[in-house]
């Protein structure tokens, strides 16, 4: 496997992609929709006046980012979900496999092309993401971390979609399975968490009185792979605000910070009901490293699987798969 070979495949993919369909139109539509929604969200925040301190930047940043995350993850499976079986159906894959390009070259090249396109869609969302940063409501560090995590998550979804396209004979099925994967990560993980809660709950009897205590610390890890959780929890906390009430100085987290709220929720879940520290430290341990590691491992495994599926000579020919 060489970077030369992977680069050749990636350039080829991007070139054919740029020349098929109306990519410029699609990207323009994407740009207008995402930034339009962000702008409308901003107006709504200002009209509602929900923010205490007159800064709509914080809720805008969180809301827009969560929206952008979900939207990009919904677009991403289309980028590589039929990359390999589509080539098989068109009869162009086998000609590649008999050249000096290795299975790793082909897998990595196709992945790089898909990821690159995914990053381009992320790039187009920057105006409304960076607005709060320019405004000073959100630090540049927070924005950078959040964007980096988002870029990694897009890569994970690209890799998983690519693996589906290598595993499944029909491109319709593989795109569908890619969407199912994204859905499982976004919606399936909280569902499992909610199902897991009563299953792991503790039943206590004191006399005739029965009590049920949820032990979220036993199932918090089900939430960890969720892209929303990873993103929100990885985002550095906003500085606490000082509030002076009756000569007493209180510190409190800014309100209307969706990312911070989600982060606090999952850290509370990890800590469980009995481990509230007496020191007044409100936060539990962070959740995102586990989630991000899991997701990255998923992506790396998917890439390995893809390369393995491209290896020739092929012995077991899956049903419906054309060797050439």
């Amino acid at each position, binding site marked *: 496997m060489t970077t030369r*070979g992977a680069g*050749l495949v990636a350039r*080829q993919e991007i*070139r*054919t992609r740029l*020349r*098929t369909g109306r990519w410029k139109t699609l990207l323009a539509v994407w740009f207008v929709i995402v930034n339009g929604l962000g702008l409308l969200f901003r107006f709504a925040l200002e009209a509602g006046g929900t923010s205490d301190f007159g800064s709509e930047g914080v809720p805008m940043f969180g809301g827009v980012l969560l929206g952008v995350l979900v939207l990009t993850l919904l677009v991403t499976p289309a980028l590589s979900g039929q990359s390999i079986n589509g*080539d098989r159906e*068109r*009869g*162009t894959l*086998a*000609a*590649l*496999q*008999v*050249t*000096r*390009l290795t299975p790793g070259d082909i897998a990595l090249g196709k992945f790089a092309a898909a990821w690159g396109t995914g990053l381009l869609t992320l790039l187009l969302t920057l105006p409304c993401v960076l607005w709060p940063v320019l405004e000073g409501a959100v630090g540049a560090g927070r924005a950078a971390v959040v964007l980096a995590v988002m870029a990694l998550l897009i890569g994970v979804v690209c890799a998983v979609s690519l693996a589906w396209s290598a595993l499944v004979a029909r491109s319709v099925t593989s795109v569908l399975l890619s969407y199912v994967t994204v859905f499982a990560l976004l919606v399936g993980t909280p569902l499992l968490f909610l199902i897991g809660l009563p299953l792991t709950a503790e039943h206590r009897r004191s006399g005739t009185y029965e009590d049920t205590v949820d032990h979220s610390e036993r199932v918090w890890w089900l939430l960890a792979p969720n892209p929303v959780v990873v993103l929100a929890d990885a985002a550095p906390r906003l500085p606490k605000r000082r509030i002076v009430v009756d000569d007493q100085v209180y510190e409190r987290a800014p309100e209307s910070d969706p990312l911070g709220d989600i982060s606090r929720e999952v850290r509370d879940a990890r800590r469980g009901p009995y481990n509230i520290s007496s020191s007044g430290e409100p936060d539990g341990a962070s959740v995102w490293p586990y989630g991000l590691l899991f997701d990255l491992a998923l992506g790396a495994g998917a890439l390995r699987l893809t390369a393995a599926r491209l290896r*020739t*000579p*092929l*012995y077991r*020919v899956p049903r419906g798969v054309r*060797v*050439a």
Partner: protein
Amino acid sequence: MAGDDGWAADGRAGDGRAGDGRAGDAQVGVPGAVDGRAGDASAGDDWAAGGEFGVEAYGVTRSFGPVQALGGLDITVPYGQVTALVGPNGAGKTTLLLILATLLKPDSGTVRIAGHDALMYPARARDALGWMPDTFGVYDQLTVDEYLAFFADAYELPKDEAPRRIRALLSLVHLEDKLGQPVHALSRGQKQRLGLARALVHRPRVLLLDEPASGLDPRSRIELRDLLRSLAADGVAVLVSSHILSELEEIADRVVLVDRGRTAGDHAMADLAGAAARARWRVRSLDPDGLAAALAAALDGRTGLEPAADLPGTVEVGPLTEAEAAGLLAELVARKVPVCGLAPAGSALESAYLAMTESRR
């Protein structure tokens, strides 16, 4: 054809070979003499042992679930010759070509491509082999030269050599006027030729073609025939599968007949088409009844010579050698039958093919 470029770039002339290298006299391909590629194609493993065959496959078996596609097939393809792979649908031709092209693993058997064990060292085999499948796609969004440039890169051709090589290939397959045009604007036959150029990008010493003539118009077929003959004359080992027997007869030096996954025959075309070959003959007469009577009398006593009436006034007899046919004609004329036509019905290859597939009915 660009006489001063292309194949000539490594000391071969791409023109003037067509048609003159018929069976028998084109078998001078000396592997090492093709060009200087012998050294760089192999890491010195067993090249020298590669000998005279570009393809050597013995006892190749392959099953797909309960269906046995190949049941112990043997085939050799010598350098400098065009070998035809002939067999009915489902005989295992495509499966064999996929195995030879290092895309499919056989259940058992040995496969050597240009002296390299294709199962142990597929990458080495790939360097030496060009392959064109029966149906394939091209990248519709690219131009003709971008398409070939991509494969030149994929085969790691030196950057400075690629443009020259691409122009030479395009003129070789008569697509030089399509330079810079998008691939999707090509006709089916032109795409087929582009696919052939793709298979030749890295100057393979072994060329595997699955039904290359399908979709080609008569002119392109003749050009394909000339191209394959000139490649063989340059020392390339060419294996062609096809159904169009009359055409193979003009292209091929050897025929390997395949039936139900096994080698059913391996003939030099010279043996099939020569004076000793037997074919069926068509006799046409102005007096059908007289012809039938005379034939019955003339063939009496000789076994295996059954007159078979089909067209009105025409009778098919055989198989006969050319000498026997001449004798039969003399006899008919002596019996005062007004013979107005005597010609071989179908070709020797067709006869061999029909004889092989007879048992299937």
